[in-house]
């Protein structure tokens, strides 16, 4: 969880660069890590974080503090991650390798002319075997359980907020987290049994 002062929010509404920088400082760590745990790939998480940051700045003038700021931010980041997963399912023509025209013009899809990218050597080097096994297990949980688990275990959000972000009843959010912990325990135990 994180808090942003009303002064920083007002400053961002006035397009003050100093306030943009202050907001970035508050959001970077929690949101990049949330997205990284949601999608498992650092470059993609960074791209989605940037989209989240811009989306927040665009929406701030109309934002009303009905919910907590952190709930609103996580909801935006989560929705962008889900949009990405939906695009992935539509096939290679909708990969992230695309030129994006923010002014509403033409979109060039590069995936047809450029071979797809794999993880960079740096990304591969940074993944230890154990972390990789955990990431794979988290990925196998599926999006619904994964997002609930990440918000609860890594970000310490209360179930009321998780429910608000993921659009489900509080009891369902709790059930998903507990189920995710049990699934993860089984997966890790089974991986270890295979190795032994």
């Amino acid at each position, binding site marked *: 969880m994180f808090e942003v002062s009303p002064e920083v929010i007002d400053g961002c509404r006035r*397009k003050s660069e100093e306030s943009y920088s202050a907001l970035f400082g508050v959001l970077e760590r929690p949101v990049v890590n949330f997205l990284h745990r949601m999608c498992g790939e650092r*470059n993609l998480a960074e791209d989605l974080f940037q989209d989240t*940051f811009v989306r927040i700045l665009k929406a701030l003038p109309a934002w009303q503090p009905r919910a907590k700021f952190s709930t609103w931010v996580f909801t935006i980041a989560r929705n962008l991650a889900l949009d990405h997963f939906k695009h992935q399912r539509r096939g290679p023509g909708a990969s992230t390798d695309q*030129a994006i025209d923010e002014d509403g013009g033409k979109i060039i899809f590069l995936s047809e002319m450029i071979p797809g990218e794999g993880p960079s050597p*740096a990304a591969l080097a940074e993944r230890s075997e154990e972390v990789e096994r955990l990431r794979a297990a988290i990925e196998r949980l599926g999006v619904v359980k994964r997002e609930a688990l990440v918000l609860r275990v*890594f970000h310490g959000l209360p179930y009321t907020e998780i429910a608000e972000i993921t659009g489900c009843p509080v009891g369902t959010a709790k059930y998903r987290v507990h189920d995710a*912990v049990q699934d993860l*325990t089984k997966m890790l135990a089974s991986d270890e049994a295979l190795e032994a």
Partner: protein
Amino acid sequence: MAGCEQARRWLPAYALGELEEADRAALAGHLAACEACRREEARVAHALSALRAMPEVPPSALRRERALAAARALGPAPSRRRWAWVAAAATVLLAAVLVRDAIRRPQPFTLSVEGVEGVVEREDGGRWIAVSAGETVGEGVQMRTALGRATLRSSRGDLIVLDVDSVLSVGATTEAEEGVLLQSGRLWCQATKREGRRLVVRTPAGRVEVVGTRFEVSYR
């Protein structure tokens, strides 16, 4: 406590510290008496502690720069009305001077290095030497990142971030086009609005002509 089945259902909440005191005491009593459930409790606790120990993505100056550049592209801060006419007139005058100069003396397309993360190198007479912030790279000179990344600003104001494990050179400038050649890897670009020459990113597989203000190209 109804038995092992209920104990197993409660274990995640127990490990997360969410059980009410009475339920917690009941489960603790069961665990003291049941070895199989104790083993399962240890597995759940191990999974959660492994999760919590997962490394975080560290802060990045490059990420900050990219995000703030994108924020700046949303538009300038509103100015006070009494200065608006002066600023507008000055902008028009400056633009006229810049356009006149640009027409008279077309500037070559170069890249200046604004920031370096890790090691970034450029070719220099067949050798590779480290690049540092403030350097300018002209047509035909190759730059490469291995585990590093570079933030570059073109002579036309475009922001280019060269990702890890990438090779880039400044392409030939013609009357119609200017830009870069991405030989391998990935770049992210925030292009400025421009008159005259179009910005083009080439790869060995083809060319990308910029239609928007922000885009990404990768080639491996």
